[in-house]
């Protein structure tokens, strides 16, 4: 059963066709990837899913329900969480607060209650803090909980961003180049980590990546795009041996590797 489905999705910025007739589906429980050269339109697709952009044409459905026209925070609240290509943490927040803030939906005390220190609020706040710590332990950042997130090293910031996304208790997790800037060891750890959280939290994961090792070893299905258009899809093996893909993308990648 498809959890996420794209139908003829297009996004034009003036004359630039960032996404052109993208059709794809992600079955529930899968770990899929969108790959393609820089500027192919991958992040634009993520932005269309999460409501940052409105599409020029086409549709995206989540569990059969269209996402078009929904506000970004609505989309986040129905179970789609994401990380960003250029990490977007809340710099002045502590590590703990980055995650704790994202967990806000687990509490339900009102704005009015926010003005008073009620017992119910205190209880819910404690719950949020405990939950946040659990997530931080998962990414090995619990001992740095009180540090400012802007002071963390790059790799830790990436992990924190993932922990923050998990705090939303999503059903679908969108990871935008999670391995960017990592060395092979870190990348291997990340691969393991992604597998772990997928199983632990019962997630469907859609990945944007450049690092071939991450994608090939990890994913159930891959779609390759270039200039906003799909040029191939299939299992990692199928895609790897597709001559179109090799020509457009993997060929270049192999040279670089």
């Amino acid at each position, binding site marked *: 059963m498809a959890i996420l489905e794209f139908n003829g999705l297009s996004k034009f910025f003036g004359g630039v066709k960032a996404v052109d007739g993208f059709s794809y589906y992600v079955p529930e429980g899968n770990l899929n990837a969108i790959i393609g050269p820089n500027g192919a339109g991958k992040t634009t697709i993520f932005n269309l899913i999460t409501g940052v952009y409105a599409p020029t044409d086409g549709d995206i459905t989540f569990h059969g329900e269209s996402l078009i026209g929904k506000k970004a925070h609505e989309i986040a609240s129905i179970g789609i969480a994401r990380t960003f290509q250029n990490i977007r943490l809340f710099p002045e927040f502590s590590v703990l607060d980055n995650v704790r803030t994202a967990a806000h939906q687990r509490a339900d005390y009102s704005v009015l209650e926010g003005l008073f220190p009620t017992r119910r609020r205190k209880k*819910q706040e404690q719950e949020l803090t405990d939950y946040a710590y659990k997530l931080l332990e998962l990414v090995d950042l619990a001992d740095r909980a009180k540090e400012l997130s802007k002071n963390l090293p790059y790799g830790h910031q990436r992990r924190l961003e993932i922990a923050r996304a998990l705090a*939303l208790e999503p059903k679908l997790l969108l990871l935008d180049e999670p391995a960017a800037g990592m060395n092979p060891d870190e990348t291997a750890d990340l691969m393991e980590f992604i597998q772990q959280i997928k199983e632990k939290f019962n997630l469907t994961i859609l990945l944007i990546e450049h690092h071939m090792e991450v994608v090939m070893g990890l994913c159930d299905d891959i779609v390759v795009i270039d200039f906003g258009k799909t040029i191939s899809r299939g299992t990692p093996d199928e895609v790897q041996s597709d001559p179109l893909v090799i020509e457009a993308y993997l060929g270049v990648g192999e040279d670089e590797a």
Partner: protein
Amino acid sequence: MSGYYSGIIILTCINLLAVLGLSLLTGFTGSFCFGQAGFMAVGAYVSTLLTMNYAAPFPLALFAGGLAGLLVSIPLGYPTLRLKGDYFAIATLGFAEAMRLIIENLEKITGGSRGIPGIPTHTNLPLILVVTFFFVWLVRNYVSSRHGRNCVAVREDELAAEAIAVDTFRYKQISFAINGFLGGLSGAFLAHYVGFIQPSMFGIPQSTQLIVMVIFGGMHSITGAVLAAIILTALPEVLRAADAWRLVAYGAVVVLIMIIRPEGLLGSWELSKDSLQDLWSKLQARLNQYKEQRLAKAKE
């Protein structure tokens, strides 16, 4: 307590109420509001008309002044909070100026540019202290709640805030409404302290002064806002510096703060049981260190 000192405290509280709202809106939520004096004007005039024309009891007039400020913020915020920060800033500036112009032109009701004299001076020290403490307490609670954190998320990165299911528009509206209420309340107290009101009391210089207080200490800390209001109200009174040079210094200090320490005096530090205990243990650690150094020196 002599009238002079109680006057300074009352003025501080009046400023503090306005700065409190601004701290929440501009400091914590990141929406630059240039027109706080406009809300004060609304509160001042509404409360004055109630006490002078309808013999309303003071607490009711105070509440009405605050409520008027809150209600005004709703239509003002609706179109402008959706857009980039500079639109909102100019719109609030325009709002304050528009208020002034409207008040000047509704002469029959508001006395025009001459204003309204002879306002009963209901504002007294105990009342305003209690009210101020109460609202500082309320806002402090709000800021440390999940809603307060959401506001800060809006300030830090709107896009990321939306991505964690925070309705940025709604939180900006709420902060704006609270700011409107506190601004109106402040104006109501001011009117019934000074005893007269004129549109010229609610112009750009007054809005600017309040923003400077927020920048000084209230960008990330309510405690800082309180401190800044105290220092920047009491200091000019004590120094009796010439108005224009004071403003020159303010301007320079604001730029310096942005360059060197934009978080302001206290940064994000808030006064609380935890933070006080934290300070206390740090102090004890320092003292112990000092004792050990003295002992080591004595042995030499």
